[in-house]
């Protein structure tokens, strides 16, 4: 009964979405207030219905209803309760439902926190969001129904992919989706402004906090994903340039460009058409990201669901959304630019460089991700595009960003004079040089890359702090927008240090150890105690035991595991990590090194282990988190809450 209710809720949600799309849009074109007034209630109704469907699917998981195909495929009677709930978004169908839920949450938030907007604007915005909802809900109903029955019911479920039975996975997808889908709001505002034809700067101001919040969630989602991959995949890497990661990274890059471009358009009126284009691009790439993850077109760790038929639906949907909005852009955007003029050296110019570099980086990632497909389709042979390509190209494109970033805040709109940078240069360069000297004196085995990490990071951090100090001296307070910007810039400084230090100083070593034997790696002695068998709720594991010594002092006890899951017989490496800000000690259990050959096996107690020492790897995620906080702080700026009238407003970013 429950699955059928869920199904009905989804069908009703689709009908409501059609109303939410058609009536307000028609009303806005005709100036019909009654039709426009449908938008808000429809948004709330859609939210309630999709939420109901989501809750019902969760109930089906909690009650182990194996007569539902999706539950039978992704759960198991041995699965602990918290993973049963998160299994809801563990595969294709459920993650689409989560997508739809997040979309309706954003839609509801826009409906709730936009009372001060003109009715034509809000009804058009909600109508565009309704169109996106139509696409996703009908995709679910017609190709990937999470409530499909399995009759007769399965006796036992197939279990959730063990990779996903992990706390990191509980929150990573919802956060990524908050980001992906959040860009739909900026997109809807852009479309609404083009439909409106007036295209004043107001739409940018209204959409700015939403873009900031979406960007902040996207940042958090990417950080969580990176952290999850680091400890769960057992390879010690934090970023693999895997198509799925690229899928979430492209909207982030374009979103970063969009944040900066929106600032220019709102304050100066320049880059208006460019901002529209970026808003379209950010959301299109979010859709592409969903497509990449869920179609299985690109083989990857993440492509749990491989079904090209669904890919075709998303491609058509993508073509409608992207093609439609670009067509509208071509037809409705006036060629003239009403922005104020600016000199070659001005904040506008620096932000333009920022936009060029971030867009180029997004284009590069897009090309690299799709190149293997294109080469194959055009019969040019098979290529694999991996970290060497992305790492080099991305480094080239981001180097100017890192070097120029501290200049940005110091630079005034319209025109700036080079000699005003002297205080910045004096302070930040001195700090960077001092840091380099310190690194030279204290650092061990530093390479050019590690020095670059220290120098560039301190350059950004010192330059950013110097600006904060100057601002506080003159105004004694920072508004949310500036504070957020400074936090995000500091975050990049911390991130740069983490990346370059861990890449240049990280150590990876495969060792073979018998119980009692030890191995010295980077000054740490890893003493192997042995391996014991342990029983988990739905797996059996070999559990290693290592004592780690720094000199004579025991600093950590690590228990890496190798798990065999009861259903499906999948093997999983559970790495053991001793985290610290300045280094992670990371051990993954390999296999028992039995003597083998001529069909015979002689058992032994020796095991292979992979040991990593990862200096400053935590700075990568710490920097990402700072960027996220920056995004939220900027969105909370009070200025955004008083769009037109002076009367106080509800917060516009509590999504």
């Amino acid at each position, binding site marked *: 009964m429950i699955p059928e209710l869920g199904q009905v809720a989804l069908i009703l949600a689709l009908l409501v979405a059609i109303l939410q799309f058609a009536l307000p849009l028609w009303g806005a074109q005709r100036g019909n207030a009654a039709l426009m007034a449908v938008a808000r209630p429809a948004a709330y109704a859609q939210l309630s219905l999709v939420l109901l469907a989501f809750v019902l699917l969760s109930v089906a998981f909690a009650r182990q209803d194996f007569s539902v195909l999706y539950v039978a495929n992704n759960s198991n009677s041995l699965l602990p309760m918290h993973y049963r709930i998160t299994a809801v978004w563990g595969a294709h169908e459920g993650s689409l439902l989560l997508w739809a839920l997040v979309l309706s949450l954003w839609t509801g938030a826009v409906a709730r926190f936009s009372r001060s907007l003109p009715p034509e604007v809000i009804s058009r915005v909600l109508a565009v969001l309704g169109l996106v909802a139509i696409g996703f809900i009908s995709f679910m109903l017609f190709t990937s129904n999470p409530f499909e029955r399995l009759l007769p019911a399965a006796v036992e479920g197939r279990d959730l992919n063990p990779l996903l039975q992990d706390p990191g996975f509980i929150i990573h997808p919802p956060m990524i989706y908050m980001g992906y889908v959040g860009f739909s709001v900026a997109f809807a505002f852009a479309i609404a402004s083009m439909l409106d034809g007036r295209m004043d700067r107001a739409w940018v101001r209204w959409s700015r906090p939403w873009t900031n919040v979406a960007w902040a969630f996207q940042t958090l989602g990417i950080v969580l994903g990176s952290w999850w991959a680091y400890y769960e995949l057992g390879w010690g890497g934090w970023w693999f340039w895997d198509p799925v990661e690229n899928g979430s990274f492209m909207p982030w890059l374009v979103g970063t460009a969009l944040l900066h471009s929106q600032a220019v358009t709102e304050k100066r009126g320049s880059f208006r058409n460019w901002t529209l284009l970026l808003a379209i691009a950010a959301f299109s790439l979010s859709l592409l990201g969903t497509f990449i993850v869920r179609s299985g077109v690109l083989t990857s760790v993440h492509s749990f669901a491989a079904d090209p038929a669904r890919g075709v639906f998303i491609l058509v949907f993508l073509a409608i959304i992207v093609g439609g909005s670009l067509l509208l852009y071509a037809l409705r955007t006036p060629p003239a630019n009403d922005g104020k003029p600016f000199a070659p050296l001005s904040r506008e110019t620096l932000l333009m460089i920022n936009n060029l570099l971030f867009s180029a980086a997004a284009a590069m990632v897009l090309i690299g991700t799709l190149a293997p497909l294109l080469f194959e389709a055009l019969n040019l042979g098979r*290529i694999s595009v991996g970290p060497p390509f992305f790492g080099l190209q991305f480094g080239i494109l981001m180097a100017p960003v890192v070097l120029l970033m501290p200049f940005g805040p110091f630079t005034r709109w319209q025109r700036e004079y080079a000699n005003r940078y002297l205080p910045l240069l004096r302070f930040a360069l001195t700090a960077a040089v001092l840091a380099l000297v310190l690194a030279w004196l204290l650092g061990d085995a530093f390479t050019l890359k590690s020095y670059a990490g220290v120098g560039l990071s301190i350059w950004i951090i010192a330059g950013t702090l110097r600006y904060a100090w100057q601002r506080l001296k003159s105004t004694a307070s920072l508004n949310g927008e500036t504070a957020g910007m400074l936090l995000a810039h500091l975050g990049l400084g911390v991130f740069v240090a983490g990346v370059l230090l861990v890449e240049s100083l990280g150590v990876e070593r495969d060792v073979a150890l018998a119980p009692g034997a030890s191995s010295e790696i980077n000054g740490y002695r890893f003493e192997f105690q042995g391996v014991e068998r342990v029983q988990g709720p739905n797996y059996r594991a070999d559990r290693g035991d290592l004592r780690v010594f720094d000199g004579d002092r025991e600093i950590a006890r690590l228990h890496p595991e190798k798990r065999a899951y009861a259903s499906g017989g999948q093997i999983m490496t559970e790495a053991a990590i001793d985290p610290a800000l300045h280094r992670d000690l990371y051990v993954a259990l390999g296999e028992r090194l039995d003597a083998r050959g001529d069909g015979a096996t002689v058992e*032994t107690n020796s095991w292979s282990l992979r040991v990593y020492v990862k200096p400053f790897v935590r700075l990568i995620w710490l920097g990402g988190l700072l960027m996220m906080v920056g995004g939220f702080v900027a969105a909370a700026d009070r200025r955004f809450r008083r769009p037109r009238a002076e009367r106080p407003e509800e917060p516009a970013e509590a999504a």
Partner: protein
Amino acid sequence: MNPTRKRRLWTVALTLLAAAAAAVMITLALQANRSYLVTPSQVLAGDIPDNGRFRLGGIVKEASVRRSEGSLDVDFVITDRLEDVAVRYSGVLPDLFREGQSVITEGHLEGQRFIADEVMAKHDETYRPVELEKALIEAREKRDAEQADDKQTYDKRPNGDAVQ
């Protein structure tokens, strides 16, 4: 030519130049990133890249894994069911490394033996590297064509390796 038109011309020229430079850079970078997946049949036919470094893919031959006790060094044989190549590797093998399962290794040839510095196995029971799948099918088709004269029947799914 009036100044506006002149400026527009410059803008167009510079844009085109930048686009061309980007296209050339990316093409060159992608060319450098070509990585070849080679099957044992191709290795024996001498069909390997000039720089000697390549990826060798196939199935780990049954009962071919050899190791002495407590050592990281391991020897095994990769087969495409037509030809075999001996492989040596030193290090931790991936979780899903199994005899009779597909595997991709990266390294270079030393004499008749492939020295691998990386071994990748498929990620879970349903996943198989698409390109490896294709290479194996091509190898099989080649054999089919050669054997067509003999009218020999041949099981398309040796060893239960389902083709997706």
